[in-house]
């Protein structure tokens, strides 16, 4: 059974289940199970009953885990709010749905606006934890940093060394010429 803490009633009077997740540097994070389950890796561990006393993640440090869980919590809350608006007969709720989508988009944009090192950390953590939305967001951020740049500019942005010989560089350009047609 998962280490589920009954945190008592939520604002709507319903019980909520929380999960404890432990980072590689032994910091414990208590989050809603729904938020933690945005990670397929964590969800499978919960389902397999491997989560007694908390779920240890030896590969993820506290700083990055905190950010990943922040992302998951925000998105789970948005999904919950969206289903409430969908089932509500209140026109104001329905009309507010596009605004909330915009809020989430703004959150994502600000969330992923980080230093390259942190970006790679988030990308790898999202990959390991199988948080698809975060992985897509991080990959898109890197892709956006590549877009519109020449090879030299890409090397500069990502501090990449040009390890081609002149002949190899010419060959690569020829092989990729189709991309510019």
């Amino acid at each position, binding site marked *: 059974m998962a280490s589920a803490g009954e945190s008592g009633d939520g604002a709507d009077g319903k019980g909520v289940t929380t999960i404890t997740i432990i980072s590689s540097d032994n910091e414990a994070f208590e989050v809603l199970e729904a938020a933690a389950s945005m990670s397929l890796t964590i969800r499978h561990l919960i389902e397999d009953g491997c989560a007694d006393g908390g779920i240890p993640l030896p590969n993820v440090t506290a700083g990055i885990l905190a950010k990943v869980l922040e992302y998951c919590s925000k998105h789970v809350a948005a999904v919950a709010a969206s289903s409430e608006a969908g089932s509500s007969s209140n026109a104001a709720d329905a009309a507010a749905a596009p605004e909330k989508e915009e809020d989430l988009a703004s959150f994502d944009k600000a969330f992923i606006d980080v230093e390259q090192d942190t970006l790679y950390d988030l990308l*790898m953590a999202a990959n390991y934890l199988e948080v698809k939305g975060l992985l897509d967001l991080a990959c*898109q951020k890197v892709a956006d940093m*590549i877009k519109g740049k020449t090879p030299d500019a*890409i090397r500069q942005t990502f501090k*990449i060394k040009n390890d081609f010989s002149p002949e190899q560089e010419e060959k690569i350009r020829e092989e*990729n010429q189709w991309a510019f047609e």
Partner: protein
Amino acid sequence: MGSSPAAEARPGTALEDLPEDALLSIFALLAPADAAAAACASRRLASVASSPVLPVALALRLGLPPPPRPLSPSAPCPAAARRLLRSLHRLCRLLGFWRRLPSSHSAYQSHAPSLAAFEWGPRATLAASFLSPSPHGFAVSKTPFVTLSIAESGDTVAAIGDVPVCVNFVGNNHIVVEAAAAEDEGEEMVSGSPPEEIYAHFANRRSPGAGRRRRGRQGRRWGGMEAEHFVRIADAEPTEARPLQGLWKGICENRTLEFYLVTYGDIGGVTCRRFSDTRGQNSGYSPVFWTTDTTFLEPPFSEQELVNYSSRDHIRDVASSHAGTENRVISRILCMHSSYDVVDPHLSTPFDARNVEGRIWLYEDGTFGFGFVGSNSIIELRNVSSASCILDTLH
């Protein structure tokens, strides 16, 4: 995406140090030119760009089934992977709506449809169809046109029924569909558009299909098909900032369903054009209204505006002998001043063609209606598509 043993980057990690599957995911998000530029940056990135798994990653991102395997899966061929990648990107570029340009062929065909839609079909095919107004309310008929798919070789193949055709880009927003040649040695059925081919197209345009037939295929015609030219319809759906933009359908004053395209100009202003049949001076794409000021009136609306709206007939149903009246909830009103003779000569209401005034009533559900001063009707418009899916299609 498989999980990686490492879940965090070491200090000083560079892009190239990311796991292969992460780099593939990034490359699958890049347009061909950007992926090519990244491939030219270093050997590691070049290796990812030519990975035979990259087309699979791209297909996955597009929600398509895995593409056909290269001919020798045991020895993955970068050239085959490049062909496959090129084909997938080409198909993606074709997605969306296109307007057929009038040609000597379509001019003799009454009611030749001019609106085409390219959509994903089953098994990673791209299916193009012509959209026509149906006689049933707001329903839209689809007539199959070209089908494109990816062969085992990684090349794109295209056909209209059983007739092989070529679909070539002339720039990014113009395509030409024409009968393919008989099999020539080493000739691809679909190729890019190097500059000399573009000029050959325009230079030889008077001769039906002559542009690509100069290599000894003269006199061979596949089903009598003349080259068809299409231009892209960008922005087929409205946005919050441009609520009138997009492809719309509405029942006009002669009680038939028509398609309308509303575009915002670069220097401001909104233009509405109607897709009529391809006969006539405007060749299937006639202006309906044009207005420079896109500032909406916000509620509360004046009594005069409300009376103007409520006194009009809403043209809704082709089957009705007279229009019904229904007052919908208006969210904003745009006052139109088309001080230009850019008006639809087919509209029955007589008015000064050089100075047209009217209204656009934007409704809460995002649709809108329009009508002119001096006319007693409102043409109500609905979206042709939503989230890139065509609505109300008849099969």
